[in-house]
């Protein structure tokens, strides 16, 4: 106790100072918590999404090291007993995979041999089901618990299941524990699956657990037309499906991290700025620098700890909410699986703690060191402080310029996506660091006209922003960065949307599109009927198919089309007329992402496994397509028939010479065949854009979140500033400022900040959009899109900045205006 009290009193002095400003303390914690929460929220969403993918993959593939796959039809079932009985490969499990639906709910039905699951996939896990009925009874299925609850189906209940274009009645013969990643799976015996799919005699694939020498042996022994593929590479390709989302979310997570760090730094440096006089006094009393530093860091630790815990507590439910959004999009567009489970990835929480605690400590360290280094009793007035800020301003500006140049250099041609991200990050931070100097210039320029128009009042507002830069600079920068992200994302999505719209306009040439609602093949009779319809000039026929390949499924688009349809393709590489000739003679054309992922150019050859083994197909052209980020290979129907066998038609494009007559005839056809889905060109285009907008719905929410963080930052900065300037406000009141006028002054100041942030955010946003479009998207997906400088996102961003700054100012200004002036004067 003899030496302790001194240290304790120093701490107490600081702590009480902090505690004395209750609002300040709350804001500091809220600032840290919000930053941490957003990072945790986005990060966990990201982790959960990718984990869900991994688990879906596991649920589908289990421990399998290899798979036996065949041509488009699949694998003949006789291969399985050959493997298992004759060759004694017991770690072999047959699968027949089938997309089905119960009502609106889209599901994947896995036809399995329950006795073969052990050791390979263990699909059914734990649960209760009647194995005898599962195998022996036609139409018996087993559901995971969650799905059973969702469908309100239990043992013995019947479900109407649509599969392969027909509706079947199936019976639930048991439920098993839901496994993460397998929420949209249901199981049936192979026999039932074959019968539901109408694919008696076939399997989708056989999963195997093989030793390397067994694999080599089997590769040689497999019957003609079958292939043994490595499950590892397949797993990887399944993982790539989710990459698009991960990349989007990663970008946002980085952004949130940046804004979060700003926020933490903001609050901490504030808390210390407010205390510089106290620190001066303590130093004058002989408190050592290291001791001051230690105490400040201890405070930061407490604030950081509480803020981090709160942030994690808020972040997890936030992630849950985001996950619902992401999950819906993912299952809608990428993969018929939903992500219901939030997995709390330890790494995300480590990140959160590092940000919350580390960020707070770091943020506290810089100002604490600066404050502690001040010689005792050096004049602690504002001017000295602002002079310091001006010195730092030079440093910050220099650093910003260096980062900007570095980021620009990193944009040099390369295919590395991570480099693109580093560049993006560097450019963002670099530009952000230039915001303060730009603000100073902007306000100086503004002071004169404002002074002319509003007199000293206007000048005060403009100069107030500059004068308060040590407090508002960080908030201003955070606001600008958040808004620029909104602008950048908005421009990117807008440009993307415009490109997709263009592309749809060009590629959707037919007047009507016809398919069955369940995507089942169209019967030859029906196709003939359609060909006879009045008003029709031409038809194109097409079908999508997934070709299992070593490096993952290849989406094949089998088309039979006329020149009119061909003219709709936008070629990015290759000469359309020559490509047309080649296409009809066995060449394929590929989409831009496909060409990007497989490094293909016209003149190259693409290997595909056909019914007759692996064949090489010349690539005649690369065309624009935004419907799949993994890419599509288009092949003429005649080519397909030659190498893969007959191709059923799933959809038809109808070209009219008399659209009105054709439309009428189609109405009649639809009345006769209610299962048909007939969409007009416009209809399909609208639907496509809807899907597009839905895909990016999640980014909207995240943009709003980023903006929210910035508003909280500005709010916290202004509240602190208001406290700081209580005396100044009191003097103004003494001079005869009415409360309203004072409030207007402060709101105006904040509005000027918002104006500045909004203006600076625009070029910053444009740069971000260009980098996203030209670098990130191209390196990640291979999509080319035209940058469109749309006024919408720019205006949105500008208003967002201005409004959030104004909104954030209202409460602090109101509080200050209401304060009794004498109290402000008393505070020395």
């Amino acid at each position: 106790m003899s030496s302790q009290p001194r240290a304790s009193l120093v701490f107490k002095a600081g702590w009480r100072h902090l505690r004395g400003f209750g609002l300040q303390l709350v804001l500091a914690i809220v600032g840290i918590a919000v930053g941490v929460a957003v990072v945790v929220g986005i990060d966990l969403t990201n982790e959960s999404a990718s984990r869900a993918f991994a688990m879906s993959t596991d649920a589908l593939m289990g421990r399998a090291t290899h798979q036996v796959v065949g041509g488009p039809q699949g694998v003949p079932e006789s291969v399985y007993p050959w493997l298992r009985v004759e060759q004694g490969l017991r770690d072999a499990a047959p699968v027949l995979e089938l997309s089905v639906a119960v009502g609106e709910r889209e599901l994947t039905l896995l036809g399995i041999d329950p006795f073969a699951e052990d050791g390979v996939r263990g699909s059914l896990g734990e649960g209760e089901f009647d194995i005898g009925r599962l195998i022996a009874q036609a139409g018996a299925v087993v559901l995971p618990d969650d799905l059973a609850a969702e469908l309100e189906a239990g043992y013995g209940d019947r479900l109407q299941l649509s599969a392969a274009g027909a509706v079947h009645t199936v019976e639930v013969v048991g439920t098993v524990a839901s496994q993460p990643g397998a929420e949209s799976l249901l199981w049936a015996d192979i026999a039932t699956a074959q019968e539901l799919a109408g694919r008696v005699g076939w399997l989708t694939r056989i999963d195997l657990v093989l030793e390397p020498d067994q694999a080599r042996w089997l590769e040689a022994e497999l019957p003609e037309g079958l292939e043994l593929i490595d499950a590892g590479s397949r797993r990887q390709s399944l993982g790539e499906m989710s990459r698009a989302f991960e990349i989007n979310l990663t970008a946002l997570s980085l952004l949130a991290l940046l804004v979060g760090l700003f926020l933490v730094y903001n609050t901490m440096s504030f808390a210390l700025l407010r205390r510089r006089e106290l620190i001066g006094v303590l130093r004058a009393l002989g408190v050592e620098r290291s001791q001051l530093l230690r105490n400040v860091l201890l405070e930061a630790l407490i604030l950081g700890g509480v803020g981090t815990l709160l942030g994690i507590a808020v972040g997890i439910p936030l992630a849950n909410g985001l996950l619902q959004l992401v999950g819906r999009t993912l299952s809608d567009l990428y993969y018929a699986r939903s992500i219901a489970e939030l997995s709390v990835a330890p790494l995300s929480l480590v990140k959160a703690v590092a940000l919350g605690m580390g960020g707070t400590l770091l943020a506290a360290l810089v100002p604490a060191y600066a404050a502690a280094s001040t010689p005792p009793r050096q004049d602690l007035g504002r001017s000295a402080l602002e002079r310091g800020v001006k010195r730092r301003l030079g440093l910050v500006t220099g650093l910003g310029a260096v980062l900007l140049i570095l980021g620009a250099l990193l944009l040099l041609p390369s295919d590395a996506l991570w480099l693109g991200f580093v560049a993006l990050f560097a450019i963002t931070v670099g530009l952000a660091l230039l915001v303060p100097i730009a603000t100073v210039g902007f306000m100086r320029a503004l002071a004169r006209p404002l002074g002319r128009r509003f007199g000293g009042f206007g000048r005060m507002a403009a100069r107030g922003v500059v004068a308060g830069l040590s407090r508002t600079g960080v908030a201003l920068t955070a606001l600008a960065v958040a808004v620029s992200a909104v602008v950048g994302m908005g421009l990117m999505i807008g440009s993307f949307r415009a490109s997709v719209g263009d592309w749809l306009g060009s590629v959707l040439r037919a007047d009507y599109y016809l398919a069955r609602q369940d995507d089942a093949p169209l019967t030859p009779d029906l196709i003939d009927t359609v060909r006879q319809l009045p008003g029709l000039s031409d038809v194109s026929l097409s079908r999508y198919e997934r070709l299992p390949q070593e490096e993952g499924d290849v989406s094949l688009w089998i088309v039979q089309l006329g020149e009119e349809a061909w003219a709709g393709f936008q070629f990015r590489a290759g000469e359309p007329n020559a490509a047309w000739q080649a296409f009809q003679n066995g060449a394929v054309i590929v989409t831009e992402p496909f060409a990007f992922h497989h490094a293909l150019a016209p003149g190259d050859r693409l290997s595909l496994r056909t019914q007759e083994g692996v064949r090489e197909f010349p690539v005649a052209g690369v065309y624009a397509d935004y419907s799949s980020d993994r890419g599509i290979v288009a092949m003429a129907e005649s080519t397909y028939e030659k190498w893969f066998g007959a191709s059923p038609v799933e959809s038809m494009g109808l070209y009219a010479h008399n659209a009105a007559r054709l439309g009428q005839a189609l109405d009649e056809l639809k009345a006769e065949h209610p299962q048909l889905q007939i969409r007009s060109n416009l209809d399909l285009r609208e639907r496509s854009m809807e899907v597009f907008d839905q895909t990016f719905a999640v980014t909207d929410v995240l943009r709003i979140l980023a903006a929210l963080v910035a508003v909280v930052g500005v709010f916290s900065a202004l509240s602190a500033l208001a406290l700081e300037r209580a005396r100044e406000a009191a003097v103004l009141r003494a001079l005869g400022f009415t409360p309203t006028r004072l409030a207007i002054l402060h709101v105006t100041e904040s509005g000027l900040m918002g104006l500045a942030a909004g203006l600076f955010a625009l070029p910053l946003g444009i740069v971000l959009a260009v980098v996203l479009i030209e670098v990130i998207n191209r390196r990640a997906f291979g999509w080319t899109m035209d940058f469109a400088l749309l006024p919408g996102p720019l205006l949105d961003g500008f208003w967002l900045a201005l409004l959030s700054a104004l909104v954030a100012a209202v409460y602090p200004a109101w509080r200050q205006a209401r304060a009794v002036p004498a109290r402000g004067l008393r505070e020395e």
Partner: protein
Amino acid sequence: MTDSALHLRLRGIAKSYRASARAANVLHRLDLDVRRGEFLVLLGRSGSGKSTLLNLMGGLDYPDAGEVYIDERALFAMSERERTLLRRREIGFVFQAFNLVPTLSVRENVLLPLELNGELGPEAESRAASWLAAVGLEGYGEAFPDELSGGEQQRVAIARALVHGPSLILADEPTGNLDLSTAQKVLDLLDDLCRREGKTLVMATHSREVMGLADRVVSLEDGRVVETAV
């Protein structure tokens, strides 16, 4: 302006502050009259309530009970806005800590009360300039407050307090932050200007040196006013 000799009348003023648990009575049913053109010194130890009393006279703080009449107008019967407008036109403040607006230049600080009263343009500029000259700071107009010494800052504050022609000047320890010789100069200036313009000057201080200049000296003791011989 009224013809009444009484400029300021305080009746039954009570004010207490709640510091921690116990309330401290600072002003205790205090009555005080100030005549027009009078230089009144409020004497008292630190914490005797001098500043509080000045703040109440200027309508910067609210009494728990009692009323302040300025030219027989009840200050606390007014709305906040009316009170502010009265302050804007008729009262000038000089503070111990100068309290110039740091973001405005010296000239702009002096212009501020004029601007608040709607006086703009060349005439206002010249008035500000002449007041700056009057306090001996010609040529300092474009400097910012933090570039001036304490005495210079307080002189700017005096110019700012008088520029718009208020009839009542409230000065709270105007020399408290200044060295002895500077303090004397500032005091003389203030006295000189007020007398020349016929202003009523109420000055709170704890230094007895001022007493020689004052018309009347009162002390604050236990929250009450005690007349003190000059």
